[in-house]
């Protein structure tokens, strides 16, 4: 090929280049993609760790249950039950110990921030919560009159939907009166994340562990 043609082609194609505006937008998109990738990698590690921890807890709970349900040599079944009243729920308690705020159940607040909300405003947090409650990653929600969920019932899909709606319409407000009557919920997600929340007379929703207090219109 003629060098003259090649030189002319190079010269002409040097003028073919993306606009500065496009490059700025592209840089932003790539930065976001890289950040998302890092976040999903962290989530994956946490998920694997959660599964591993659950397996350990399940095995430990199984051993504990087997041990405690073994008939005593004296044959006094009631004394076995009395000595460990929480045994049937011990595996649940231990699971909760791994994730989230389990203050009400064990009296020992353990908070693991599985859900990274550091970059969200409270309103965005409410939107994110609404989405999470209506997503497939939600396993179930327990409902209770107190901030304790041992033996609490799961709520129906309709109730989950209305709870999600409450967050969709929520706006930031001050904390509701402590003496107000509350309904407490514990949302459990497939990846092990647990979020406790409460609703006050269908007018407020709260996520106490995040200090998020929202008014529902």
């Amino acid at each position, binding site marked *: *090929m*003629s060098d*003259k*043609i*090649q030189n*002319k*082609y*190079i010269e*002409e*194609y040097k003028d*073919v*280049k*993306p606009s500065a505006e*496009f*490059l700025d937008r*592209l*840089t*932003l*998109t*790539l*930065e976001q*993609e*890289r950040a998302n*990738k890092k976040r999903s990698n962290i989530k994956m590690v946490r998920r694997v760790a959660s599964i591993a921890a659950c397996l350990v807890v399940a095995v430990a709970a199984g051993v504990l249950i087997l041990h405690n349900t073994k008939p005593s040599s004296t044959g006094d079944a009631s004394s076995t039950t009395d000595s460990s009243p929480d045994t049937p729920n011990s595996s649940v308690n231990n699971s909760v110990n791994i994730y989230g705020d389990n203050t009400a159940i064990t009296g020992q607040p353990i908070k693991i921030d599985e859900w990274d909300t550091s970059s969200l405003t409270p309103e965005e947090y409410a939107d994110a919560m609404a989405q999470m409650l209506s997503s497939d990653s939600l396993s179930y929600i327990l409902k209770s009159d107190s901030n304790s969920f041992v033996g609490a019932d799961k709520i129906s899909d309709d109730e989950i939907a209305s709870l999600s709606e409450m967050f969709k319409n929520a706006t930031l407000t001050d904390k509701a009166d402590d003496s107000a009557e509350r309904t407490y919920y514990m949302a459990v997600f497939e990846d092990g994340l647990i979020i406790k929340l409460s609703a006050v007379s269908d007018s407020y929703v709260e996520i106490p562990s995040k200090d998020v207090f929202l008014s529902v219109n």
Partner: protein
Amino acid sequence: MSKNGVAELSARELVDKYSAMIYRLAYARLQSNADAEDVTQEVLLRYIRADKSFNDEEHRKAWLLKVTVNVIKTLATSAHRRHDVELEEASGVTYEQQEPSGVKEAVAQLPEKYKVAIHLFYFEQLTIEQISKILNKSQGTVKSLLSRGRDKLRELLSEEGQYV
């Protein structure tokens, strides 16, 4: 931070270093700024998602060019683009009906199969072996593409009395 000897690039560095290369190759084949931008974005997103290790800059550049060729193929055969091209042809405004005013325009009038090979050879100044790897074709096929492409380019330019 590095990936097996070759430095990991920040988003800005990645854009500064490779976006023009990808954009030009895409433009050479697709002749559309919007399509070239789409290809550039898609290729660099794939780069980040792939999180590959590269031995050196040449390896990284070759990978990006190969992915660019694949993305161009996908876009060139997409229903959306076919629709646009059909509309363009129906309107009677095609490159084939215009006289080339330079080498760039002349290359744009070449049949599709020659454009990428010609661009990689002319502008990126890659060897036949490198082009054959990027296009996933034999060296003989690449030689043939370049030879026939050159002949057609010469024909187009001689009609205009340019560079011959």
